[in-house]
Structures are given as structure tokens and as C-alpha cells.
């Protein structure tokens, strides 16, 4: 059978048997949740409620409750949207792209990374919704037959491309995730004692029996879905970036956006995965599955993407100067020297300078340091979107309408709220779902398991 080079570090530590893996993963679901979990979910649920309250107030009263104005028509809403979509990308990337590249280390993290994707995309999808002046007419964006006769949507609009991209991306990653979950639900079904849970997991597992034919199909489907999801994940953020790239506003109208946004997305996505995995690994005692090696691999991805993003920033500046267009060049001069320079330099430090520290192997493998960095990176990426959106809009072509953006408590409440909702969903996932891909882990046990490595 296939032997992995012994210089590679094992990805599963401890003398694990198939049974142990099941026990380790399903155990927490069977037993009572730790106190920490209850505390965590209470806090995040409260934040979520506050956010939902703000959203209801927003919808009830009007977009005016945000700090937007005639010059800056988008600010935190779309910033958050792009930020969340970006975060979402890591999950699909890990499960799809790394699957294609046969990267075994993905298996320990892909399940929760995909979960993160799903929840992040839900958060993201919320913003284009609530940022609409008339949410209740949101169905206008779908080409539905209607009482007005032949009144259709505008397929030229990048915003409509977004609608298609986001909905496709969300549904496909959901399916991908769930198909992977089915066999593991079956495992729980066959293990768990309490009748109610048995029934529920029975339904969730769709009656999976693990026949040989099922498994062949299963592997085929995973492979093809991965193959489809890979271009999808790149297309989605490219299309998001086209919201800006196809416009005429200096600072938005840039052809470099698609690659720049995608790498930025991966960058922030991996940072968020780090944050979550480090917490989960501790609380759910998964040290043997999510190893230092995993953390290090992800940090390497962060260095690479972080550097790409850095290059993109510099290219932008160069182009603005090289183009010789006064509006273009002013837009960027204004970015780093204008009223919003603090945002620009916050972005620069968080996204370009800080990831470079990961070149030091010691830091790269330090969990504490990684955790702090992962948060810094996500702050930086939020600022990147803020800088792109607000500093381009607030001073565009006609100086008479130049203005500033000042967030209101609703802006802030909605953003914090989405973070609350996100963590609530993730905590529920961690409690009731198999957080590791059992069947996949088992299949690599004999290849990358510590015990087996030592044997040979």
C-alpha cells in the first residue's frame, strides 16, 4: 500500500485506532457539553440578539439610520459584505483545492473550515439584503415573471452577477459540506444511545449504509464537486471585485482587482480558520488531530497570500502615478495622506508588515503568536475593504460633493451582531456536528498516523 515519506511529520498523533478516532470525535456529542461552551454561546447569542435588534430598527426606520450620505453611498455595509465573503473562501479552498492537490493535512480542518464558509457566507449574504432601501422588494433581483409584463433584471449589472455568484457559491458549498457529512452522521447514528438523537441523526444521515458502490460514488462526487468548486471559489471573489472594478470611480476602476481580491480573501479566510481551530483544538481536545504542523502549513499560506496582497497595494500606487490621470493619482494620494490615512496605514501594517513575521519558524509554530496574528490579519482585511470603498467614494470627481463618513451606532451594532451570529452558529456546529471528517481521517490513518509511521 501507499507509504508516505517518513520525513513528513505525522498528521495524526498518538496511537490511534479507527475506534479511537470515532470515540474522540463522537464522544463530545454524546457527553454533556463543557461549561466553557455554555458561557461562550451565551455571550455570542447576546451579541447576536443586539445585532438583530439593530437590523430590525434599520429595516423599520430606513437606511438613514446608518451614517451614509449622498457622497458615500456604501460604507460599513459593503465592507462587511466583502469581508465576510472573503473569510468564507478559506473553507472551500481547503476542502476543494487542497483535495485536488491531494493535501492530506486538509482532512483535519476541512470539515470545520467548510462550516465556517457556510456561516460566513450567510453573514455576507445578509448585507446586500439589508443594505437595500426596500428590502421587501428584494425579489426584484431575480428574473421572475411579473405583473408588469416583460420587466426583467439587468444582466449587465455587476450587482446582479453578485446575486448569482453568491447564491451559487453558498448552495454549492452547502451541498459539498453536507455530502461529506452524511457518512459521519451515519457513524453517530449507529453509536449514539438516546432514542431522540438516534432518530434525528438517522434522518440527517439519509440512511447511509457504506456499501462499496456508495463509497465509489461518494469519492467520485467529492472529486467532481471539488473540481467545480475550485473555479467557483476564484470566480466568486473576482465577481465581487467587479462591483468596483467595472465602475468609473477612481480607486475602484482597476483591472488588478480580481486576483488581488481573491488572494486577500484566502488571506483573511485562513486567518479566521486559525482563530477558530486554535480555540476548538483547545476546547474539544483535538490536539492529536489539529497539530502544530497544520498550524504551520496555514501560516505559510498566510505569508504567501499576505505578500501577494502587499504587492497588489504597491502596484495600485504605481499605476495611479504611472497612469498620469489626475483623478486616479489624487485618489491614491488622498488614501495615504488624506483624512482617512489612519485607515490606510492600519491596513498596511496589519496586512503587509505583520504577516512577514511568520518567516521566523519559531513564531510560525507558536500557537499564541499565531492566534494574535490571525486576529490582526482579519482587522487589517476589514480595513482594506473600508479603505477601498470609503476613501474612493468620499472624494471622487466633483470636489463640491466631497464629504466624510461617520458610522452610527446602528452601523456598529449590525457589524458586531453578525460576528455574534457567526460564532453562535459555529458553536452549535461544534456541539452537534462531527467537527472532523471521520471517514477521511480513518482513510489516512495508516498513511499519516504517527503509530503506523513509526512501525515502518
Amino acid at each position, binding site marked *: 500500500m501507499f507509504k508516505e515519506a517518513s520525513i513528513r511529520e505525522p498528521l495524526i498523533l498518538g496511537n490511534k485506532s479507527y475506534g479511537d478516532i470515532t470515540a474522540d470525535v463522537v464522544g463530545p456529542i454524546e457527553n454533556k457539553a463543557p461549561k466553557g461552551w455554555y458561557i461562550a454561546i451565551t455571550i455570542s447569542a447576546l451579541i447576536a440578539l443586539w445585532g438583530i435588534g439593530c437590523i430590525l430598527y434599520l429595516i423599520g426606520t430606513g437606511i438613514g439610520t446608518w451614517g451614509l450620505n449622498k457622497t458615500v453611498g456604501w460604507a460599513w455595509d459593503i465592507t462587511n459584505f466583502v469581508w465576510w465573503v472573503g473569510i468564507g473562501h478559506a473553507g472551500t479552498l481547503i476542502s476543494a483545492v487542497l483535495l485536488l492537490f491531494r493535501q492530506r493535512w486538509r482532512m483535519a480542518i476541512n470539515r470545520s473550515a467548510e462550516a465556517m464558509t457556510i456561516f460566513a457566507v450567510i453573514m455576507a449574504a445578509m448585507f446586500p439584503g439589508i443594505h437595500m432601501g426596500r428590502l421587501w422588494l428584494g425579489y426584484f433581483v431575480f428574473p421572475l415573471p411579473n405583473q408588469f409584463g416583460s420587466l426583467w433584471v439587468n444582466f449587465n449589472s455587476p450587482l446582479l452577477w453578485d446575486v448569482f455568484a453568491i447564491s451559487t457559491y453558498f448552495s454549492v458549498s452547502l451541498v459539498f459540506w453536507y455530502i461529506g457529512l*452524511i457518512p459521519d452522521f451515519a457513524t453517530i447514528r449507529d453509536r449514539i444511545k438516546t432514542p431522540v438523537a438516534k432518530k434525528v441523526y438517522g434522518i440527517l444521515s439519509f440512511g447511509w449504509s457504506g456499501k462499496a458502490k456508495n463509497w465509489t460514488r461518494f469519492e467520485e462526487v467529492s472529486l467532481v464537486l471539488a473540481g467545480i468548486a475550485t473555479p467557483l471559489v476564484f470566480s466568486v471573489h473576482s465577481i465581487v471585485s467587479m462591483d468596483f472594478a467595472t465602475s468609473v470611480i477612481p480607486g475602484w476602476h482597476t483591472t488588478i482587482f480580481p486576483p488581488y481580491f481573491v488572494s486577500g480573501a484566502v488571506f483573511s479566510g485562513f486567518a479566521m480558520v486559525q482563530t477558530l481551530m486554535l480555540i476548538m483544538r483547545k476546547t474539544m481536545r483535538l490536539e492529536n488531530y489539529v497539530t502544530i504542523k497544520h498550524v504551520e502549513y496555514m501560516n505559510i499560506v498566510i505569508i504567501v497570500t499576505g505578500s501577494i496582497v502587499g504587492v497588489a497595494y504597491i502596484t495600485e500606487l504605481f499605476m495611479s502615478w504611472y497612469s498620469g490621470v489626475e483623478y486616479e493619482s489624487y485618489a491614491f494620494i488622498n488614501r495615504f495622506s488624506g483624512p482617512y490615512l489612519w485607515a490606510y496605514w492600519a491596513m498596511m501594517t496589519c496586512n503587509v508588515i505583520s504577516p512577514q513575521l511568520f518567516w521566523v519558524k519559531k513564531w510560525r509554530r507558536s500557537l499564541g503568536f499565531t492566534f494574535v496574528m490571525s486576529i490582526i490579519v482579519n482587522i487589517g482585511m476589514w480595513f482594506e475593504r473600508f479603505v477601498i470603498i470609503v476613501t474612493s467614494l468620499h472624494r471622487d470627481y466633483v470636489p463640491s460633493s466631497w464629504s466624510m463618513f461617520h458610522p452610527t451606532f446602528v452601523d456598529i451594532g449590525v457589524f458586531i451582531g453578525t460576528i455574534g451570529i457567526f460564532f453562535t452558529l459555529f458553536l452549535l456546529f461544534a456541539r452537534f456536528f462531527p467537527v472532523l471528517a471521520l471517514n477521511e481521517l480513518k482513510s489516512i490513518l495508516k498513511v499519516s498516523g504517527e503509530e503506523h509511521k513509526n512501525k515502518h
Partner: protein
Amino acid sequence: MANSVIYAMYDDDQTLLKAAKELVGKGIKVKDCYSPFPVHGIDPVIGVTRTRLGIVSFMFGLGGLSLAMLGTWYFMIHDWPMNIGGKPNFAYHLNMPAFVPILFEFTVFCAAHGMALTYLIRNKTLPGMPAVNPDPRTTDNRFVLEIDSHDNQGMTTDALLEAIKGTEVFELNHKKY
């Protein structure tokens, strides 16, 4: 004689594979195999044919693409052509570049979901379907070969059992029906 099904349980995928090979070598037809994860190499041994899901998804993708093209053409060019920002919509090919993202996304949408649905249906894995694995442990750490005496008219049940006992079988169940 009455038909009967024999479930030979093994505690490791490699042993299962070995046993399967032996049995097939003795000309015994193995009906199916239940395992907690894909056992690579079992399919050819017990004669499981290759799946055609890949082609299915390609067909769905193709369908999605043509549907998207039809839609964009009908909505933007045929049914109610409008002057939107001066973009040319006199003929489809003039306006088409603006639709590429939509065409792509819809293709992916159809391909992925079409395939996923076919997969679930062909697998008979749908909400509320009963599980048919002979033993709950097969989703944990046990591996089972299913041998139906009906497929092996040539041998008596006892002969079958003998042959199976010859392998490193971990547990043996024999059901009559």
C-alpha cells in the same frame, strides 16, 4: 434449499481486502461490502462497476449553460431590449461579454446540484431512508463482506462458511430467509 445471507465481519480494511481476494479466488461471489470509509481496491475484486456521475454532472453543466444563454438572450435582447448605459444589445454576441459571469455561475450551479441530486437518488440516500448496514459497527471500525448463497448456487452454505472461516474473519453471522 432455503436461501441464506452470510455476513463476514473483519476488524481491518487490509484483512478484508485479503479475505475478499481469497474468496473470489475460490470462485465465491461476494455480494457487497460495508465499511466505515472507502476501502481502496475492493471494487474490482468484488466486481463493482465504475460510476458515471462525472458524465452526469457534465451534461447538467451543459444544460445550465444553454439555459443561461437562452435566458439572457430572451430577457435582454428579445423580450424587452432597453438602452442601458448605451451598451449594445442589437445582437446577442454584442452584449454577451457582459453576461459571461452569469453564464459561468449558472453552469456551475446546474452541474453541481444536478450531480448531487443524482448521487443521492442513485444511492437511495435521502431523508428518512432506512439504513441497511447489517451491523452498527460497520460505520465505526468494522468491515463486513456480504455473501448471498443465492449467488453461489454451486456451493452449499456450509461450504461457503468453511471457505470464509479460512480467512482472518473476526465474526460470522448467518441469516436464513
